[in-house]
């Protein structure tokens, strides 16, 4: 039994209906107190992984532990230690916010003498006090998410699982959700594992990123370390007019430059864009290539994904779309 980790998974495989391979041998370790993002396109297997870790479904093969407890053999003990907010809404919208907290508090088994205090504390913490006695039906998306977080945090879980916590929220609501999650983590030293397909959110909020594609882990590391895997330095994107081949030929003569994407707009990596850009432009114009637009940026997790999988997140989703649709059908039929 691997102790010392908040979450540990070994060779997890999940096959739906005997055909759709949602997880294809996932191994990962999350340290206690860590803030871990699991990123990847839709259909990468992030949700399936989280549902196994939160004891909802059993893996086809492989093992996983949360705080040293096996997610299948000791599911009850895992459930007592975790908080979880699913991607879809998990509150009753025909009850008030307060009633939702009350019902969940009772289901969690929070003793009567503590219930009211815990609920009040959570309403305050999540800035929902004024809306507490309104039906959830009248809440905004951000308020519903904060209510769900309030429910998950009532029992002060040591490990918090969030599946796409900010999906569909506007930037302000997203920021508020994150500030509450980070505040809770600071106060209680909890481990937070979250799924997201917003790469920039993983970069901004996580300490370690696990990148998944097609049921496998394709990369893991700190967001900035991962970005370095694409290469040190800057990325320059060149929106070209006309012959790309001619441009690539011109670029091949510039020292200290690597082509990251050969499709228009061409993406090249340089050590220092400020110093090298003039030479780069000179080479292009000298070869008769016209540049419409130039962009300079630091490498992002999107670039890491492109480098590792040979496609953009959008391409992976489009490619995986048939697979993802088949998986959803299989899940619905319940194979």
């Amino acid at each position: 039994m691997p102790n010392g980790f908040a979450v540990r998974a070994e060779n997890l495989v999940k096959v739906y209906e005997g055909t759709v391979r949602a997880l294809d041998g996932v191994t990962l370790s999350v340290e206690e107190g860590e803030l871990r993002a699991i990123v990847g396109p839709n259909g990468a297997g992030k949700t399936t992984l989280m549902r196994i870790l939160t004891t909802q479904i059993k893996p086809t093969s492989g093992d996983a532990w949360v705080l040293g407890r096996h997610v299948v053999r000791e599911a009850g003990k895992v459930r007592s230690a975790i908080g979880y907010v699913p991607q879809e809404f998990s509150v009753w919208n025909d009850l008030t916010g307060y009633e939702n907290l009350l019902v969940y508090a009772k289901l969690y088994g929070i003793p009567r003498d503590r219930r009211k205090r815990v609920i009040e504390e959570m309403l305050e913490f999540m800035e929902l006090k004024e809306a507490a006695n309104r039906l959830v039906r009248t809440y905004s998306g951000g308020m519903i998410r904060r209510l769900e977080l309030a429910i998950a945090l009532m029992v002060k879980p040591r490990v918090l699982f969030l599946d796409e916590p900010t999906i569909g929220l506007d930037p302000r609501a997203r920021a508020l959700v994150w500030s509450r999650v980070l505040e809770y983590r600071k106060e209680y030293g909890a481990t937070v594992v979250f799924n997201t397909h917003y790469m920039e959110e993983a970069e901004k909020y996580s300490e370690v990123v696990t990148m998944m594609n097609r049921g496998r882990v394709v990369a893991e590391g700190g967001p900035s370390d991962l970005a370095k895997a694409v290469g040190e330095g800057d990325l320059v994107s060149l929106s070209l007019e006309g012959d790309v081949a001619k441009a690539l030929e011109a670029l091949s003569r510039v020292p200290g430059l690597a082509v990251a994407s050969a499709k228009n707009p061409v993406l090249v990596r340089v050590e220092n864009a400020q110093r090298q850009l003039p030479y780069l432009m000179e080479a292009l114009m000298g070869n008769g290539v016209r540049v419409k637009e130039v962009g300079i940026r630091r490498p992002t997790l999107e670039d890491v994904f492109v480098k590792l999988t040979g496609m953009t997140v959008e391409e992976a989703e489009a490619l995986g779309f048939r697979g993802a649709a088949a998986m959803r059908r299989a899940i619905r039929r319940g194979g």
Partner: protein
Amino acid sequence: MSLARALTFVELELRRLRHDPTEVFTRAVQPILWIGVFGTVMARVRAIPTGGVDYLTFITPGVLMQSSSFIAMAYGIMLVWERESGILKKVLTLPLSRLTVVLGRSLAGAARALTQLFVILLVAVPLGAKLDLSPIALALAVLALLVGAAGLTALSILLATFMKTRERFMGILQAITMPLFFASNAIYPIEVMPAPLQAFSRVNPLTYVIQALREALVYSNPLACLQSIVDISLFSLAMIALATLLLGKIVE
């Protein structure tokens, strides 16, 4: 398993009903027609042998169970909906045993079904149904209905784990509830049925619940009623056990 936590699901249901009690009344329309129209007309015809009890009194327990069973059997649709939302996923990650979840939800469905007892008594008694309304009779009726409706709700949960879309669930629901009603002793004694139908009605749980309700409310026979409740509880326990075993399938 914790009974207090299971009962929280009943509290949840009652709170939802308080915010929106529409179902109590919409579900009451059909039984009101059965008692008010069908019952009063057939009582005049005197075509159905009811063993010395007037027809309106005879069918009141039957119609009560019909209405309650429809509510209990429809409970699964809520689970289908909760499955599409995140509620069921969330509930399955709470520190609750599967048995607590199924028992709680079954009792919650039964609590919803129980509302029909009061609605139908309110209609049938003024129309002339001669019912025993003593505290013992009413308590037994509540118990019979609660145990029976909990079993039917568990059956509905079981169906929901297999029929994972609303359309499929509604389809199967239609196909089950009406036959269960007509192949029971709800509106005629089973002795007047053809033999194969009689055989079916003897394994039909509705028959036993209606029997228990008649023993309580019409015949004032508490001992016979308790015996019927024991029979019903065997069915209900079996359904709850089966639904508990298969609940995990619903989110796969």
